[in-house]
């Protein structure tokens, strides 16, 4: 249990390629996997690893996020000492581009980092969704006497070519990071950074202070990449399943992958449970005429129609003779009698009335904005 590590979740993550889904919320608050939001995964990984002091650099204000987090009770982080801190941000508007100006917010919350009691700090974003225990990385960090340990996922060079908007790096034989690229168009490396960094808390404070005073604005570039030669930065491999949610298409594809039993098993159970805000919904109800195959269904749903290859979030209603295929229906969505949707993403509270039809393409699903009635 990493009692000596504090967690910092950096939500300055670009969300340009998410269309309507991020209109009302930051990336971290995107609903995922039927009942979660992206941030639940990193939060759960932190607490399952024994981290009990977690600060969230929130990159702007969002009621979606603060409502979701509330007191931190769901993650057992409503504490007197330590616990969960939603740190204020001076960011306004959406995070864009490859080099978000996150250092300003790091700097304005330096007090919090300074006054924390743990020796180490573990940083992470919210978009690298996986089920990981950080203990192995921690012991690797100690053993290597590293200044910074950064986690990565190894790809074949063919796979790596298809990635975009990511940070890649190369390591020497001993694991030391020797080259790093942020958002390359053509990458020369095969190690995808999970954007999770472990380091001494004092080093973090020094790096932020030094970078800001030299005009730095972006943490990854100015605190990490620029110090590849000065600091001992090591890479630690993560071998589990990674769902990196960096575009709408990716979001859709990774959602559908959850229907594979092995992936479902790994992402939800491999190293501990994933916690989220409890909604107290009754179990899902399958009515007399329900026909459901290859789907993920959350509590509170009531199904009388047909559902295949789809994800139904909490409280979704599928009426009689309705048909839902290859679609994601978020919380409280409703598919009216006889309505048909295919390759569609319904944001929260979307309703399609009786007999209506919507069809997108698998490589370009239609997104319907929150609260729409069709």
């Amino acid at each position, binding site marked *: 249990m990493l009692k000596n590590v504090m967690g910092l979740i950096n939500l300055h993550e670009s969300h340009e390629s998410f269309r309507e889904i991020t209109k009302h919320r930051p990336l971290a608050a995107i609903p995922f996997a039927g*009942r979660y939001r992206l941030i639940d995964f990193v939060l759960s990984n932190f607490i399952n690893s024994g981290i009990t002091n977690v600060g969230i650099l929130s990159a702007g204000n969002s009621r979606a996020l603060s409502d979701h987090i509330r007191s931190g009770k769901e993650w057992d982080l409503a504490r007197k000492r330590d616990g969960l801190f939603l740190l204020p941000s001076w960011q306004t508007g959406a995070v864009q581009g490859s080099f978000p100006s996150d250092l300003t917010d790091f700097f304005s919350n330096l007090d919090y980092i300074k006054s924390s009691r743990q020796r180490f700090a573990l940083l992470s974003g919210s978009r690298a969704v996986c089920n990981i225990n950080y203990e192995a990385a921690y012991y690797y960090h100690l053993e290597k006497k590293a200044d910074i340990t950064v986690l990565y996922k190894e790809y074949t060079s063919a796979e790596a070519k298809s990635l975009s908007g990511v940070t890649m790096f190369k390591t020497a034989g001993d694991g030391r990071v020797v080259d790093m690229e942020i958002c390359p168009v053509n990458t020369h490396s095969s190690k995808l950074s999970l954007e999770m960094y472990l380091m001494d808390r004092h080093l973090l404070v020094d790096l932020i202070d030094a970078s800001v005073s030299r005009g730095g604005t972006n943490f990854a570039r100015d605190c990490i990449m620029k110090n590849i030669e000065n600091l001992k930065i090591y890479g630690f491999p993560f071998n589990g399943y990674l769902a990196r949610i960096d575009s709408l298409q990716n979001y859709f594809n990774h959602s559908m992958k959850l229907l594979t039993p092995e992936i479902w098993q790994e992402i939800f159970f491999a190293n501990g449970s*994933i916690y989220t805000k409890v909604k*107290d919904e009754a179990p*899902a109800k*399958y*009515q*007399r005429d329900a026909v459901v195959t290859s789907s*993920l269904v*959350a509590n509170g749903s009531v199904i009388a129609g047909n559902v295949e290859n789809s994800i*139904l979030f909490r409280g979704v209603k599928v009426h009689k003779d309705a048909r839902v295929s290859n679609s994601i229906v978020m919380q409280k969505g409703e598919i009216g009698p006889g309505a048909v949707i295919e390759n569609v993403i319904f944001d929260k509270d979307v309703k399609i009335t009786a007999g209506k039809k919507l069809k997108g393409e698998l490589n370009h699903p239609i997104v319907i904005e929150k609260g729409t009635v069709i």
Partner: protein
Amino acid sequence: MRSKECVAMILAGGQGSRLGALTKKLAKPAVPFGGKYRIIDFPLSNCYNSGINTVGVLTQYQPLALHSYIGIGSAWDLDRREGGVYVLPPYVREKGGEWYKGTADAIFQNINFIEMFNPEYVLILSGDHIYKMDYSFMLDKHKASQADATIAVIEVPWEEASRFGIMNTSEDDRIIEFEEKPKKPKNNLASMGVYVFSWPVLRSYLTGDAISDISSHDFGKDIIPQMLAGNERLCAYRFAGYWKDVGTVESFWEANMDLLSDEPALDLYDPDWRIYSVSPTQPPHVIANTARVVCSMVSEGCQVFGQVENSVLFPGVYIGEGAKVKDSIVMPYASIGANAIVNKAIIGRKSSVEFGAQLGVNDQLEQEASRWFSGITLIGENLTVTSETKIKRNALLTRL
């Protein structure tokens, strides 16, 4: 401690021995119900939804499971700085302690607890009934009619009335007579075991009853008749809606099945009256492409590869490919292997029915099992029905 207008006391000590293997290690109120709940979730959620936030839960049989389930009451939003939920096992004095002699004795033994909050009214509830009820309306009626006690009643079919405690009332719903299980009922208004008392009145009757040698210290049998004899003002509060005492394996099974019709009498999906429960921290369930699920409730964390019809699956249940589960209740983390057949059965927590096994079929009995007479096959906790075993209807499999 701030004083509270109304304190609720839930009688949750019942052993529920007619629930057989279900209550071997659990008090009746802790028995799982309806795909994710435990029976006590209903009165606790009713309390919270009615705005009553000070609740004593009186335990005695297997108190630890109930204590650890209720915890600090977070699930019902009853983790309060003042008030909240208190688990109250029988109190052991220096000279020793014993189980409550009856429902009235249970409250009598906890007079000190109640007085801590200095309430005007006390609401007495049973921990083993399934229903949704807004107690605040009952409390309003109690105040409006200036009653000393108000008893919730429900109309039962005349032919069943003799199984209940029957209230005979005057036209303005004042109770004039109470008959416990009358052979010739004059009325069909049955007591639901839900009472509002003005606390000072109840306190004095409890104190009087406690020193009586002939009393059985029961609300229905003793306190209510004594109050009638004492000319106190007792009123009936009529409740209309679903209400079920799940005291036997049959009624427990029936109450679960009642939830499975397309329009059940007990609506668990009403956002204005949620039934709260401890969340199991499980992901949404997966339905494979080989599965078929109809007329059923399926909870989080289940993996369904086979066929499920008219059944209730609790969290984390696994149904293998080709398995057929019908008219059954499958408790948390139980697994039904490939091609197994399960008919009208209750499968206990973490039990495993291995591939090809058949339960509730009217075929030969291959495994030693005691018998049960409801047509229901009951498998206890943590048991394995080995592959290809066949078990007839009415069997009861449990660990001694």
